[in-house]
């Protein structure tokens, strides 16, 4: 008996091109409880929304159905619009006439029938909608940032500068991530260490930031504003509160280990700082390689040598639990293991075939060769260097299908560095395309060409060693000839892949991953830094390959989102949650067993039944914890618990309406 208004959108021609809007409008007029139907070129536009508001007043409507694009797109928009009218924002249903009708069908008549069905289903459902109201929950104004690379650091700094406490968790012994490994950064060629380490130091010293290195997130529960996070502080066997970072222990430590930071091209000790400018600049003991800890010997030299006595071999992992209002994930990336995939490039048997990060270490002043480009095999300076791009990227059958975006630019940078550092060197760059989609990127690329880098359009098909030279065979598709270059050293610009262990973090935060395991953003264009789990945001390459400028931009964006949450005293909860009808509830407790968020608890309540006072066990829902999934509702046989917004009655109406 309600008065429903139906508004069909043309969406320009997106819907109108395939669906016969006039026929849908005509049919909508005869649907139950519909008293007003109108179509509009752009319903989501300002005039479109105003037309709806006017119709509400003019025709005294109390329920709205909009046939437009996917509710996932504009349901929030239309709900905000309704908030400014006297209709409750939840007396609204949206029929998906674009993504699931006009865009995916070609037969005009059948698509129109389907559109009419979808509108009829929405009209039937809206008849059973109830006004819903949000309730508020407190916000813990403390942020957690997972991942200490440039993305994590930037996000932490921005949030801390806004005055909120931040915990910055990093798995490795030091902040810095991949950026601190680089030598120069394109296109300005300023030294990466000079722009990254100051930020690391700021983060290390910022009063609002608690840096927790050698830590991993162990357990996450709760919801936006009230995340209960347990962090595992791995045993580092060095008491950082006492250690002054003098470095004596590193000198004295007898066991040598290949350094991960130096990409395996140098050694480090069992007790080590990954690199000189590490933040915190204090060593940790790598238990696997420390002779005392892995039981190979009785060593303990570092303990005896340490003037402050900060070495403690009985250190153990500690679990620290705290509540956080929001979480930013910045777990970054790593380079694809090309050796196991590309046997044709030598599969790792030629030491002089290295990847981009190894080249960065070579050309870096604090690297193993103090900045001189020397061949890892014999330490000589290579006269001719071949750079191979798209190794693992844009290669769906062997590597990854996507383009890793940054390698075109840092390949040009590498070529520029080779030509600049090695006099009369020869540098060949095998490429498919050169993508310079950034500010001053194209100019940087043309300058590299002017420096004399030779760009060969084609993939390298094979690399093999022939009398001391690495022969790179390929094809120059522009001239159509096969090309082979004898090189002293080959740099493979390999694809970016998500950092190892990202699955665990994603499952903890209940966020999903896309086909290539990058973390799934809420919407690629409109909500790139948000996830589907409210209060969890993404920054940097963990969301997909990108270069440093985009990473920093995303970091600040996610920081802005976090500050948005913290700026409010309380948060509005999602009103579409479960509700129990205690008259029908028999207290069997099945729903409590099903709820993944432990939002349902069984409580004893007083009742008067046939004049006798009794206590009876019934189910109660914690409106803060309930996320509105409805698994409990489908598990409740009498339907005592129902999900507001998707009640049993509503869905039954939709099913009935569909089959008319």
């Amino acid at each position, binding site marked *: 008996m309600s*008065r429903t208004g139906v508004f069909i959108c043309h969406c320009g021609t997106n819907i109108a091109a395939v669906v016969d809007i006039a026929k849908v409008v005509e049919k909508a007029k*005869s*649907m*139950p*409880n*519909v*008293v007003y139907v109108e179509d509009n070129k752009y319903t989501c536009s300002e005039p479109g929304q105003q037309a709806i508001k006017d119709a509400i007043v003019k025709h005294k409507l109390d329920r709205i159905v909009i046939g437009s694009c996917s509710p996932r797109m504009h349901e929030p928009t239309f709900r905000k619009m309704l908030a400014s009218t006297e209709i409750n924002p939840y007396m609204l249903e949206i029929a998906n006439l674009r993504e699931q009708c006009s865009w995916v069908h070609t037969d005009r008549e059948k698509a129109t029938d389907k559109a009419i069905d979808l509108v*009829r289903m929405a009209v*039937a459902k809206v008849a059973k909608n109830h006004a819903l109201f949000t309730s508020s929950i407190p916000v813990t104004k403390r942020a957690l940032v997972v991942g200490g690379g440039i993305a994590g650091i930037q996000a932490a700094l921005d949030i801390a500068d806004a005055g909120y406490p931040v915990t910055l968790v990093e798995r490795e012994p030091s902040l810095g991530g991949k950026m601190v490994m680089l030598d120069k950064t394109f296109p300005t060629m300023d030294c990466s260490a000079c722009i990254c380490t100051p930020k690391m130091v700021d983060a290390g010293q910022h009063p609002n930031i608690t840096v927790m290195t050698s830590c991993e997130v162990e357990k996450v529960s709760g919801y936006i504003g009230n995340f209960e996070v347990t962090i595992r502080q791995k045993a580092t066997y060095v008491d950082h509160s006492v250690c002054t970072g003098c470095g004596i222990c590193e000198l004295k430590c007898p066991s040598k280990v290949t350094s991960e930071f130096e990409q395996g091209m140098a050694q480090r000790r069992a007790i080590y700082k990954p690199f000189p400018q590490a933040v915190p600049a204090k060593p940790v003991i790598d238990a696997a390689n420390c002779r005392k800890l892995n039981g190979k010997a009785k060593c303990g030299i570092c303990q005896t040598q340490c003037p402050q006595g900060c070495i403690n071999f009985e250190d153990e992992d500690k679990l620290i639990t705290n509540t956080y209002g929001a979480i930013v994930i910045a777990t970054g990336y790593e380079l694809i293991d090309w050796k196991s995939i590309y046997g044709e490039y030598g599969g790792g048997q030629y030491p002089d075939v290295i990847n981009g990060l190894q080249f960065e270490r070579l050309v870096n002043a604090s690297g193993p060769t103090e900045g001189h480009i020397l061949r890892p095999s014999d330490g000589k300076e290579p006269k001719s260097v071949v750079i191979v791009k798209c190794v693992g990227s844009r290669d769906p059958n062997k590597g990854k299908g996507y383009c890793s975006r940054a390698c075109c630019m840092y390949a040009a940078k590498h070529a520029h560095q080779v030509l600049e550092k090695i006099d009369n060197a020869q540098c060949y760059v095998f490429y498919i395309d050169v993508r310079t989609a950034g500010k001053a990127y194209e100019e940087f690329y043309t300058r590299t060409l002017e420096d004399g880098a030779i760009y060969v359009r084609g993939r390298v098909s094979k690399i093999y060693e022939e009398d001391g030279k690495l022969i790179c065979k390929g094809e120059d598709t522009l001239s159509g000839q096969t090309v082979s270059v004898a090189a002293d050293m080959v740099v493979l610009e390999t694809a970016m892949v998500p950092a190892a262990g990202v699955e665990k973090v994603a499952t903890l935060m209940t966020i999903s991953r896309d086909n290539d395991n990058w973390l799934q953003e809420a919407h690629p264009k409109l909500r790139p830094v948000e996830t589907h789990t409210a209060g969890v945001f993404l920054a940097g390459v963990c969301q997909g390959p990108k270069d440093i400028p985009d990473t920093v931009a995303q970091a600040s964006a996610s920081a802005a989102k976090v500050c948005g949450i913290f700026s409010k005293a309380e948060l509005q909860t999602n009103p579409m949650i479960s509700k129990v009808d205690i*008259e029908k509830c028999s207290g069997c407790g099945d729903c409590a067993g099903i709820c993944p968020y432990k939002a349902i608890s069984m409580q004893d309540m007083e009742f008067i039944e*046939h004049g006798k006072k009794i206590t009876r066990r019934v189910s109660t829902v914690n409106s803060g914890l309930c996320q509105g999934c409805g698994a409990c509702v489908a598990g409740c046989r009498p339907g005592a618990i129902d999900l507001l917004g998707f009640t049993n009655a509503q869905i039954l109406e939709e099913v*009935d*309406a569909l089959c*008319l």
Partner: protein
Amino acid sequence: MKLSKSKVNQALDMLAKEATVLVPMIVDGVSKFAPWGTEGKLALDIVNTLLPPKDALFPQTEKMYKYKVSAETAEVKEITDSDKQVVFGLRSCDMHSIDCMDAVFLTKGYVDNFYSRKRENLTTIAINCTKSNPTCFCDSMGVDPNNAASADMQLIDIGDAYVVEARTEKGKAVEALWQPLLEAGEGTATPISCELKLDMAGLPAKLRGMFESDIWDDGYQACIGCGTCTYICPTCYCFDINAENHGQEGVQFRCWDSCMFSEYTRMAGGHNPRPSKKERLRNRFMHKLAYFDERYNKNLCAGCGRCVVNCPVNIDITRFIEKVKEVPVNG
């Protein structure tokens, strides 16, 4: 006139030409009144069928009117189709049930048109009982097993044939139809009476005063509140009205309902005048034995014994009647 038993099938075929003929049959192991022609075994020998013939006149689900609704307008169209029916092989207890339903649906201020249409199109052909089940007690309830007085035609079983006694226009019409099959001959059947005897004298009046008596405090607990007794009872006629809605059109129908169901009298807002099984069982027995008598001075229990046999926890109206007898008069 006489109809030999060997010609019964033929007689039924003749009747079946212009009307649906309901005969007692065993279909899929269930004895009920089924249209002549459904595959199953004709069961004229059993005393009474599990399902009574009441659904010929008062079907379990009966569509009353179709409707079309729009935001403003509404349209209603009564469903009036009802074809001719003949019930063959009625026992006196089933005929008593039809009498009771006639009293309810055709008198007291309103005539139920759905029922009256079916009643006019119905011809009842009763057969006297030649034996009684141990649970039959119809003669104690004022029903004569040998003769169903109000039937259109009474057949009297005299061994190999039935003596045909047409009583009403409809009965005479059937007799005329059967003329070629009938032979001359008379005969009387040895009257029978039920083994189970109950003393019903003065019981309705006595029971009316016993609403608060403690006889009700025991014997109700075993009841599981299902609808079996009321749905297979030939004289239960309570019904519910509901709508089968399909978007903007639908059908309003009425369907059997049982006073033994827990939500039968539950009102909006939860108040229930008969909250537990004790009140519901009291109401059922009182209605059968006292209330109906006060209103239509006829027993609403035909003594057919169906509820005594089929109640899963044998709540037994006969033993209740005996218990009422024992209660001292001012009790």
